[in-house]
């Protein structure tokens, strides 16, 4: 992994905390603070799923399905965190899962919707069909919109009724939480859509949606006992931490949106507050839901999300009672709009885009896992299609690409056969060598490139060395300059100094390149080694500077200095090499291995290369450092 890369050799690498990778942002870099996170009781969720999981197993399910288990906590732990209390947790505290939901999956914003989706994904349930109760137009509740008024501030309203809802404490709080999540996300903090839910049995239709002067609106708001005039209420809520952030939506308008029943009971003053009169409670059986909006599309999505997720608790499961909304113009609409949206998608588009071969039946059954009823179909030009009946709860399905995407999820991203792109890969040794070259240059050494070819004495006699039969020898040299290949970089650098007598001192030069040595283990009997050499020449030898350069080379290679001489880094031992001056030379030991030497160049050697100023020199086999 990245953390196990060679850089981990570096002494500065410490264990890093689990940072969030720049997070789901609505873009390719990740983290979106707007990605909703819902809290659900683990045990309730598992009960709803009909299955228990370990945290790891559930995490895996989330990862495959496309949600994320963000945190595992408890109610009390959350409260403790909010209040900054440090306390031991009780073992019997209910475990809460915090789950991150894709921002376009409003249908997953509550336990009911999430559990249903996962049950279907786990093949434990078939996709439900939502329908409107068949009550006939006469029995249908009516909502009349004074649209000439409401168009000034909040033009639209959509409504529905859930009959015979069986709330318990958990379901009730889930219902409230869902409204909250929708308000925070798709409703854009109630500016686009505001949801009001009411105990229908306290009200009498038909209802009207109006927009009146605040002076003319009086009612007892939720959680209050006395009646307020709307303008006074705005003032009153300016100190309310939760509600004050919504006041700006209507505050400066001459008219405020307001809902009445036939007895002029105020249902709500959207998007601020409901009336106390129609407040829902655990005992509420029949729930009237209204969504006022500036964006009709989103209002419909919100309403559909509310009714589809909670219609499973209705007396008649998955059945929703419609309401007729009539505008001043006489246009009327039945809500909720549970129309199924049909999409016809060529199977070849799906399989070609994913890069898998699938039969049409496989495609439809994969779509079923994603709560999308689908069937085989044939286009006019005989193309094999899947016809997808997008349920009213699925506003995320915009385009055939969404169908393709869902097939890919159900197939499993991690099961898709991959195609490796064409690419090139430079040699690691040369890449590293190039980076090292820059580092040496940044230490103010000038690069030289010298010849591989040299005379035999360059390798040995001129360096005070015996010929130890380590060098490649050319059989037919044209001149004594080309008798063999260099066994070290040293002669090339010394010759360079010798040829630059007039250059101002100090001269600081370096070379990184290959030398050639006889090698019994190779087929041809010789092999290259990659060396680094640097030389300082001046009024003084610069021995300590060359020593400092050795330290820097090791630092950039991520090798720590271990003066005690163990095998975890490098250390320096004094040496006795003939090309260096006694007492001013040393071996470099890396992980117990001798990888190079540095020292003051022996005066005899300087003389051999016609150099009149003292020099210090280092040569390292950098291949040994890899």
């Amino acid at each position, binding site marked *: 992994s990245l953390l196990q890369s060679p850089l981990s050799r570096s002494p500065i690498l410490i264990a890093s905390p689990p940072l969030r990778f720049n997070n789901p942002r609505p873009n390719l*870099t990740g983290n979106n603070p707007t990605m909703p996170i819902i809290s659900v009781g683990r045990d309730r969720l598992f009960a709803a799923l009909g299955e228990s999981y370990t945290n790891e197993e559930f995490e895996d399910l989330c990862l495959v399905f496309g949600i994320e288990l963000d945190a595992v906590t408890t109610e009390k732990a959350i409260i403790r965190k909010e209040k900054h209390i440090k306390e031991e947790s009780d073992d019997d505290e209910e475990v809460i899962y915090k789950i991150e939901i894709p921002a376009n999956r409003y249908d997953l914003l509550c336990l009911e919707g999430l559990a249903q989706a996962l049950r279907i994904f786990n093949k434990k349930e078939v996709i439900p069909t939502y329908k409107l109760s068949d009550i006939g137009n006469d029995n249908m509740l009516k909502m009349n919109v004074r649209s000439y008024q409401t168009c000034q501030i909040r033009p639209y309203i959509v409504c529905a009724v859930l009959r015979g809802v069986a709330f318990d404490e958990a379901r009730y709080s889930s219902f409230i939480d869902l409204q909250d999540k929708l308000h925070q996300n798709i409703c854009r903090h109630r500016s686009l859509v505001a949801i009001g839910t009411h105990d229908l049995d306290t009200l009498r239709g038909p209802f009207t949606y109006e927009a009146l002067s605040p002076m003319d609106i009086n009612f007892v708001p939720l959680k209050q006992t006395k009646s307020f005039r709307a303008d006074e209420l705005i003032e009153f809520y300016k100190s309310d931490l939760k509600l004050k952030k919504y006041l700006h939506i209507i505050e400066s308008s001459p008219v405020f949106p307001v809902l009445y029943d036939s007895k002029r009971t105020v249902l709500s003053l959207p998007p601020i507050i409901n009336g106390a009169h129609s407040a829902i409670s655990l005992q509420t059986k029949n729930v009237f839901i209204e969504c006022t909006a500036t964006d009709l599309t989103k209002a419909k999505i919100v309403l559909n999300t509310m009714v589809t997720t909670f219609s499973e608790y209705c007396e008649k499961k998955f059945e929703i009672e419609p309401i007729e909304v009539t505008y001043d113009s006489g246009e009327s609409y039945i809500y909720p709009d549970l129309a199924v949206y049909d999409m016809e998608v060529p199977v070849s588009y799906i399989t070609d885009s994913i890069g898998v071969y699938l039969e049409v039946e496989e495609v439809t059954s994969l779509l079923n896992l994603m709560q999308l009823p689908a069937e085989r179909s044939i286009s006019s030009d005989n193309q094999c299609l899947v016809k997808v009946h997008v349920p009213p709860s699925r506003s995320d399905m915009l*385009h055939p690409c969404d169908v393709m995407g869902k097939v890919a999820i159900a197939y499993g991203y991690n099961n898709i056969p991959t195609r490796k792109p064409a690419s090139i890969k430079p040699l690691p040794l040369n890449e590293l060598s190039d980076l090292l070259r820059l580092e040496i240059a940044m230490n103010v050494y000038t690069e030289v490139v010298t010849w591989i070819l040299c005379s035999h004495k360059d390798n040995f006699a001129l360096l005070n060395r015996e010929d130890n039969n380590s060098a490649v020898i050319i059989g037919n040299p044209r001149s004594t300059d080309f008798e063999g290949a260099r066994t070290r970089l040293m002669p090339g650098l010394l010759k360079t100094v010798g040829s630059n007598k007039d250059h101002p001192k100090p001269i600081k030069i370096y070379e990184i390149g290959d030398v050639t040595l006889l090698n019994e283990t190779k087929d041809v009997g010789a092999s290259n080694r990659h060396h680094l050499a640097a030389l300082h020449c001046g009024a003084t030898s610069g021995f300590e500077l060359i020593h400092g350069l050795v330290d820097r080379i090791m630092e950039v290679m991520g090798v720590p200095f271990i003066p005690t001489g163990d095998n975890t880094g490098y250390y320096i031992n004094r040496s006795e090499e003939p090309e260096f001056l006694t007492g001013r030379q040393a071996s470099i030991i890396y992980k117990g291995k001798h990888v190079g030497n540095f020292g003051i160049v022996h005066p005899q050697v300087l003389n051999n290369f016609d150099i009149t100023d003292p020099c210090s020199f280092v040569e390292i086999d950098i291949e040994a450092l890899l």
Partner: protein
Amino acid sequence: MAETAILGFLQNNESIPDSGQFAAEHNLDHEEVKNVIKSLQGFRYIEAKELKRETLVLTDEGKKYAAEGSPEIHFFSAIPEEGSISKDDLEKKLDPSVFKIGSTQAAKKKWVAMGKQVSRKVQHVEDKVKESLLQIQQGLELDKESLNSLKTRKLIVTQGWIGYSDIQKGPSYAPKRKIFATDLTRENLQNWKELEFKEYNFNAKGQPLEAGHLHPLLKVRKQFKDIFCQMGFEEMPTNNFVESSFWNFDALFQPQQHPARDSHDTFFLKAPSTTRELPEDYVERVKQVHESGGYGSRGYNYEWKREEANKNLLRTHTTAVSSRMLYALAKGPFTPKKYFSIDRVFRNEAVDRTHLAEFHQIEGLICDRGLTLGDLIGVLQEFFRRLGMPQLRFKPAYNPYTEPSMEIFSYHEGLEKWVEIGNSGMFRPEMLQPMGLPEDVRVIAWGLSLERPTMILYGIDNIRDLFGHKVDLDLIKRNPICRVGIESS
């Protein structure tokens, strides 16, 4: 002097048995001899054993008597051989201390008769005191009685003496000492054979160097750039921080009410507040696809506002540049492209340990016919393998302009868990087709931040330590070569 004498003596002699004796014989100061021995021993020219003993030395008074004779002798000599001398005359004749001490000692030894008149009692006396003192000076033994008497008279004292014995040639012996040097210099290069170097401490590091250093963040950027180039990607021109909402959001099919377009997420500009121009026909197609769809899409069904699109901002992602590049690509006959960029993006958010208001986004995209999700996964595997992350998993995700969208997770050996490392996906047809790209052209893309992998690589847990003016300069100086993309299994 002493050095030459010692080294010279040892050239022809086996050893010097006693430094004190040697000093005396060669008329040298023993202290100097000692110092030279010590120094020569340090450089291993000679070997020597330390020698300690007690000796008697003459006090100043003792030295005077040894040279001039004792006071009692002077006193005695001043008295006529016969007859007597008045005490007063005698006192005038002699030094007062000689008179005082001499009279006492001579009387004690019964050499003289004291009274008003002083006369000799004996005719011949010997100056035993002087004799004894001279003997001590020569290092000769004395009888106890004489010693005690001299000690009582404070003419001699005992003293500790330190010197050397058994002085012999050492392993580095030479008849002439070399020149002491700390370095080989232009001046001393000619007589290098005579140079002697002080021991060098190889347990300490060498001299720190004056050098320049590259910033770790950009070292990592260079490696990422190399990886992209090796994979055949060309770099997009991202040198434009100011962007219009249109190219940053609308062109990417990001709806205008999207939370990312809130002022608490994006830096909108006061000057220049709006874009001066947009490609009108393209704007119309983008408006259409947002409002009512097309190209097979339902669209978002909301009223798209030109004013929103005109608003200028600091780009929130480099994908703004990608959208311009793809739009430009769509204008000509289609050619497949692989693009990348690594550049600054801006977010209007609180700065903390892991978040800054600006950071670097790394982005790669491939635009071609017939691309599949398998291609995307393949290219991600290759890309991240080069970063040293061979083990990847992909999570379905949501992003307004990609479908499918995949979050990329890598197994973190240190944390022993999967961590999110980037995002990726296939650009939506609603984004590509209004640009005019052919229907069968698909674009796969991925992105990540530069800071995060750099922080992991260099063990930095606060982003402000890495990037910005609060950076620790020492951290920049001591960081190693970035080997990302160089070594991977």
